[in-house]
């Protein structure tokens, strides 16, 4: 396959230029122009008014990521220690809910969390006081964790199964107890999985707009909702929407840059990330 096969990617190059590069340039163009098409910084500056929305999105996304990591790591560890056949079954069970459309999964939680929902009926039947859960920030975090936890478990699991057993045995031979083996060998060696899990949960969690709409009510506006409102909602203003999108992209890129930094420093820094 010599030089001539290079041209096979020409249609792809054209396609991506038209449907990825050009649209991104358009986002930039709309973000820096007003309705008549002349240059302005107003859109970017007015994004500052929504700093509370940005902070809320980042905060809720971060909480959901930490909770997913806290719940997902033990599960991945337990699965990785099982025998091969049970591992396959378990991995499939983790993935199976992902095959159901995420709107339906989130809708299921609406049924459970409502004031007259199943959990509250259950509490009522036990004679316990009812709890208001739907339309709270907690419900949004729950929805995020529920939808994205497989993205945390799967990369963790695949890294944990690849750890060389002889390394663990070596540590044990050298006198490490099981706690030390876990903290000083297993955790540092699973860092690449942690990093890809964290990115795969954080990015969709920060930019979601359905979960907050369905579980958060009106009071928990996130960046995604803000963008949605500017393009398809009541507040139609694609220029402002583009500016918000641009800022969101920059935030995500910065976060990923920080994560990659950790990935490189991992060999030297050991297990001090957690």
């Amino acid at each position, binding site marked *: 396959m010599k030089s001539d096969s290079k041209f096979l990617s020409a249609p792809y190059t054209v396609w991506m230029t038209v449907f990825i590069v050009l649209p991104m340039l358009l986002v930039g163009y709309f973000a820096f122009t007003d309705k008549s098409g002349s240059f302005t910084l107003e859109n970017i500056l007015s994004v500052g008014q929504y700093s509370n929305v940005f902070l809320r999105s980042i905060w809720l996304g971060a909480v959901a990521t930490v909770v997913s990591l806290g719940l997902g790591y033990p599960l991945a560890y337990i699965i990785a220690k099982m025998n091969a056949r049970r591992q396959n079954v378990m991995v499939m069970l983790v993935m199976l809910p992902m095959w159901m459309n995420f709107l339906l999964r*989130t809708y299921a939680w609406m049924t459970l969390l409502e004031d007259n929902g199943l959990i509250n009926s259950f509490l009522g039947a036990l004679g316990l006081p009812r709890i208001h859960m739907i339309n709270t920030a907690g419900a949004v975090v729950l929805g995020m964790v529920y939808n994205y936890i497989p993205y945390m478990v799967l990369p963790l699991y695949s890294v944990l199964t690849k750890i060389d057993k002889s390394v663990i045995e070596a540590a044990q031979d050298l006198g490490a107890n099981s706690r030390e083996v876990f903290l000083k060998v297993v955790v540092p060696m699973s860092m690449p999985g942690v990093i890809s899990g964290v990115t795969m949960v954080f990015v969709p969690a920060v930019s979601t707009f359905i979960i907050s709409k369905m579980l958060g009510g009106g009071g928990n506006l996130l960046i995604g909702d803000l963008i949605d409102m500017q393009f398809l909602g009541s507040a139609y203003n694609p220029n402002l929407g*583009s500016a918000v999108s641009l800022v969101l992209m920059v935030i995500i890129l910065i976060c990923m840059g920080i994560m990659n930094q950790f990935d490189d420093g991992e060999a030297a820094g050991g297990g001090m990330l957690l």
Partner: protein
Amino acid sequence: MKKAGARIYTFLIFLFLYAPILVLIVFSFNDSETASRTVWGGFSLRWYRKLFEDRLILEALCNTLLIAVVSAAASTVLGTMAAIGINSMKRLPRRIMMNITNFPMVNPEIVTGVSLMLLFVSAVRLFGGRSLGMGSLFAAHITFCLPYVILSVLPKLRQMDPNLYEAAQDLGCPPGKAFFKVVLPEIMPGIVTGLIMAFTLSIDDFVISYFTSGTTQTLPIYIYSMTRKRISPEINALSTVMFAVVMILLIIINARNAKERKTEKLPEYHESM
């Protein structure tokens, strides 16, 4: 003791993952005139009957399947060609191409959706033509499927011995035939994985379709409008049907893999998605 703890923990996590789905399924059989989501009124199949009489849902399903088939096929052909091209590139152009390929996968979905919407709306404004609909949906779905196809074909190309193709030509095989007889069978598993991924991603996509569909309905968009409107147990019936279909497909795939594994005697984990 430790083992029991691990078991209980695993059980609790799976309870968390599956309880909502179970509730959906149970209440899809609920016979209740008030259409309550939480009061049990006896067993019935009425919501299933209603579901299959709903012309809008069936239309949305047809659209979804059509889009999935077309965009999976198109992105597989385009993506495989691109992967072969990228694989034979020098280092710098290859890096540029890989960065462009990775970009839509790291970029938030909503930004991809919004940017494509801007593109289509601007194109309509500039050149006229029909507004957003099936055409823009095809283009959008092909776009977000392409990277997944390329990333599943490329590793197979790297694993392949490049001498094989030259050996075939040395033995008198014309280039075209050498490609179909030597290269294609080698990278077939990657192509099939890419095709299946593209198909399922396309069926499941909501966010990008939401911004690029105009008034065209796909199944996820229809589901979204159902959850906004009112309490409707039809959604439960629909979820149950979709879940059952997925379960059956997975069981078939797994049974086939188990058979293959038996014949090959390789207890390796299958690279499903």
